[in-house]
């Protein structure tokens, strides 16, 4: 496996905030209300991952992998060759009926999810590092008790860190209690909080890096817009 390199989001403006980049094993939480652009950011992260020749596991909890594939195409990445090469794997945690070997029924316990995730990770090509995205982790947690969530959360992230896997967990604000976010926040190296700023009449999308465990990253507020082909565009980039 290649060592010594660091990872980026693939989004100018955000990348410039993280200096030398994220070390492998870093954990990222992307948090915000529905429709703010979390999945768009995740799609750009997939694109960056594959362009850097890393492996990518995408866990679909809020829509079927088929829809995510179309979504990726919109942002300029056709998943088919990467899936054929074993560099991109979708886990279906959305569909009601089994759709293949990487299927997780939502009624199963989180332990079963963990063993599926381990199996998928073990099946990746170990010559390249792996990044894993759960879209969204808050949906995976739905209907489960707080203790199960916290135990799973702590164990999983520790395991991923140890394996040098970058994880990106998407969290939808309305789904989980705010207290759950607070409890799990300390487990992450980077938290990107997405929200609406500006007035009610003219809301502006904004984000900031709410928490940087190492304290080495800038936490400026960034305004952004979403282009249907490019993805997130940080407005600071529009003025040079």
């Amino acid at each position, binding site marked *: 496996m290649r060592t010594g*390199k*660091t*990872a*980026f989001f693939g*989004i*100018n*403006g955000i*990348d410039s905030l993280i200096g030398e*980049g994220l070390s492998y094993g870093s954990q990222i939480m992307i948090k915000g209300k529905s429709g703010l652009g979390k999945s768009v950011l995740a799609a750009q992260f997939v694109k*960056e991952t594959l*362009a*850097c*020749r890393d492996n990518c596991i995408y866990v679909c909890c809020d829509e079927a992998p088929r829809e995510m594939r179309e979504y990726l*195409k919109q942002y*300029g*990445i*056709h998943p*088919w*060759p*990467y899936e054929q*090469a074993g560099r991109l794997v979708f886990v279906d945690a959305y569909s009601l009926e089994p759709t293949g070997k990487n299927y997780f029924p939502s009624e199963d316990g989180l332990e079963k999810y963990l063993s599926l995730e381990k199996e998928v990770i073990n099946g990746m090509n170990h010559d390249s590092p792996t990044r894993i995205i759960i879209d969204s982790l808050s949906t995976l947690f739905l209907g489960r008790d707080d203790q199960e969530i916290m135990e799973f959360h702590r164990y999983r992230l520790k395991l991923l860190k140890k394996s040098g896997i970058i994880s990106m967990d998407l969290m939808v604000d309305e789904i989980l209690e705010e207290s759950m976010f607070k409890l799990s926040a300390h487990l992450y190296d980077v938290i990107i909080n997405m929200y609406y700023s500006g007035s009610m009449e003219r809301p502006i999308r904004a984000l900031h890096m709410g928490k940087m465990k190492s304290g080495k990253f800038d936490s400026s507020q960034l305004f952004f817009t979403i*282009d249907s*082909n*490019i993805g997130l*565009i*940080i407005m600071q*980039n*529009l003025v*040079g």
Partner: protein
Amino acid sequence: MDENKLDKDHFSFKSLNNLFWGISHLADKVPMGGKNYVEIACDYYTERMFNEYIKPIFKPVSTNVIDLCMAWLEIMDNEGFLDKNDYQLYNEGDYTHIRVAPHNCTYFEYCAAVNKEDLPVVCPRMLSCKWIATNYAGRQYQLKTETFSETELCRGTIYPGEMISEILTRDGDNITIAGERAIVLSTNAFGILVKTIYDYAPHLLERVLYESTYYSSLLEYDKVESYYNSDRDIIGHLLNTVHRLGNIRYEIMEFDSVNKRAVVYAYGSYMAEIFKKNKLSTSPKTACASGKGRLAAYFTKAWGEEIVCEEMKCEAFGDEHCEFTLLPKRL
């Protein structure tokens, strides 16, 4: 007879072969060189020879391509330059196929030598037939030849078609490529242009490089589409043109027009060089957005539906070549 004195005929024969060999070498070295340069040189040579020596005695029985070629070969045979029995010609619609036994051919040494050295080559004999056809049959003809082999018949086809105007030419103060004014940029100058876009609008860079190449490549395809009969030949010609411009050497590794899939390797990517030199990405990654745009455009035109291109390997990443996979977007 002085034994040290060179045989005059042998000397002329050697001179002719070496002269053509020199033209092929030159065509390989000059920017935008290649087969067309040799073809143009041959056309001029045939025209001059024909007008000076052949024209008064050229009496074809009709303006049918085979009759024109036979009348020309007859004269050459009478003059002792070839044996007309080495030539077989037959028609297939508008196409005239030529088969030539190579060993008696004046240009055998030239063809064998340039073939070994992988230099641009045209068959001067078949090309002269094409020239005669174009000048006497009242329409433009093109020649397509198969790879030369010392042990098999040489094969070529003369077919109706315009000469592709693609060579770098000089037009007064300007140079043109395919009839359009051209500018030559160093990778340093182009790198600065790209870096400026990156500095002011980094989110747009990939899109700018992809789309500018995509749309210009669609036009390139349109320009040469009518000269070839197969999509593979058109794409082969276009990729060869990119190579002749000194940009990138492409190699088609897989070409499945039924399922619409292709794999293309690229060597010597200038974009990979520019990306590395100007630090246009935060970490090593695939860099050839323009290559993707070019191939996506060519294959979209060829296969009649939206084809997308993914770069699976890249020289910017340290790979020995870039690798592109092409497939339908709908897949």
